[in-house]
């Protein structure tokens, strides 16, 4: 069960960069999301859920602001410093409470991030002793599987309907005023091809990431698909959440190459 420690660091940087980007994009809406929330408080299922719904149940404006400030500061800290489990724990607590407080603005991407941030607590334990290594290795594989499970499960759901099989799904989705782009529906052959390609991607990606030769190409295809949904369908944070989590599937050598490209980019610009 090889753990790719270089990839883990890249993954941790990517998810904290996502957090900062998401918070920045939410700034203009903060009043409706968190300060005077539009979302009514959710009923809290089970005792443990008080941990995840504390702000919804007992949140004051001051606590919300504290959670936001801590989330920003610790995300910046985690970007530049080696991850510590306590810092990962506070980030997850703040994030999941803010997410549940604004559940009406939620998305699969936000849920994916909440889950990987939870497992990132164990991932940050490192390999100082055998127990820590078991915890972090388990977390590493759970995050990897969490990502591919999301594709696989949504693919299975789509097979239980009719429109993904008959090729009309993307045409219907893009003409929904909440998504778009409507102009795409004028090209019915293209929307049919996109429908079947998306369905295929959701079953191919969970298999292709296991093999060295197909891993990077399928992740590039997946990232292209997500970027298109960010650009045209109004779900940017979902797209970037998935792309950020892709880093966990890279091998150490592939992560080193990504880092090299990023360094060259930094030097060039």
């Amino acid at each position, binding site marked *: *069960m090889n753990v790719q420690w270089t990839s883990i660091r890249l993954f941790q940087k990517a998810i904290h960069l996502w957090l900062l980007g998401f918070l920045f*994009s*939410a700034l*203009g*809406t903060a009043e*409706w*999301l968190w300060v*005077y*929330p*539009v*979302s*009514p408080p959710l009923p809290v*299922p*089970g*005792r443990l*859920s008080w941990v*995840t719904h504390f702000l919804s149940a007992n949140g004051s404006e001051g606590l919300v602001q504290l959670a936001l400030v801590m989330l920003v500061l610790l995300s910046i800290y985690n970007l530049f410093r080696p991850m510590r489990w306590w810092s990962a724990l506070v980030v997850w607590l703040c994030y999941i409470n803010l997410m549940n407080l*604004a559940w*009406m*603005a*939620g*998305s*699969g991407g936000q*849920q994916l991030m909440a*889950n990987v941030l*939870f497992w990132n607590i164990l991932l940050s334990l490192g390999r100082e002793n055998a127990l820590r290594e*078991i915890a972090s*290795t*388990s977390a590493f*594989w*759970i995050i990897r*599987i969490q990502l591919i*499970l*999301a594709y696989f*499960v*949504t693919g*299975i*759901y*789509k*097979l*239980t*309907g*009719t*429109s*993904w099989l*008959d090729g*009309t*799904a993307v*045409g219907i*989705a893009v*003409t*929904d*005023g*909440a998504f778009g782009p409507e102009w795409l*529906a*004028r090209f*019915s052959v293209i929307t049919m091809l996109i429908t079947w390609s998306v369905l295929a991607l959701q079953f191919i990606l969970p298999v292709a990431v296991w093999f060295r030769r197909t891993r990077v190409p399928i992740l590039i295809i997946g990232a292209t698909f997500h970027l298109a949904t960010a650009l045209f369908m*109004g*779900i*940017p944070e979902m797209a970037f959440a998935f792309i950020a989590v892709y880093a966990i599937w890279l091998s150490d050598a592939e992560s080193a190459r990504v880092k090299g490209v990023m360094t060259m980019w930094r030097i060039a610009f």
Partner: protein
Amino acid sequence: MVIIVVGLHTLLLLVYTLPVQFVPGVFRSLSITSIRPLLHQSWQLFAPDPPPCSCAIEVILNENDIRPIDQDRGYLQKRMAQTIARSIQSELEQGDSLPRPEMVRSMKRMVGDIERELGDLEFQLREECIVEPRAPTERIVRITKLKTAAQ
């Protein structure tokens, strides 16, 4: 040890997230107990099918000025307006004539600034439904006035 932990978690996650018809009830409740409190997730965007009717809540300022409640304030505001609209649409489909009070409060909070200026506002649900899936641009528009003044 790692294989057991990861395998067990994956199994519970699959049972929790897969469509109910594929999972026996007893396993479902076990997965709900273990996954829901901290690791809730659902992967059903546009699945099993994209919704045949798009929907939006609009605020009526006057006969000529009807606006969506998100007021073009960005993607998260738009998402909240969409969640409210979907919830109200589903309530109306079930035969409720009044939206739930918490949804009315959410709607009013979205347009709080306008309401402070103009007083009690009226809202409507605007739906655009496909007739033929192969011609999704041709949609029938359906407007339902919402009774919210008393709430």
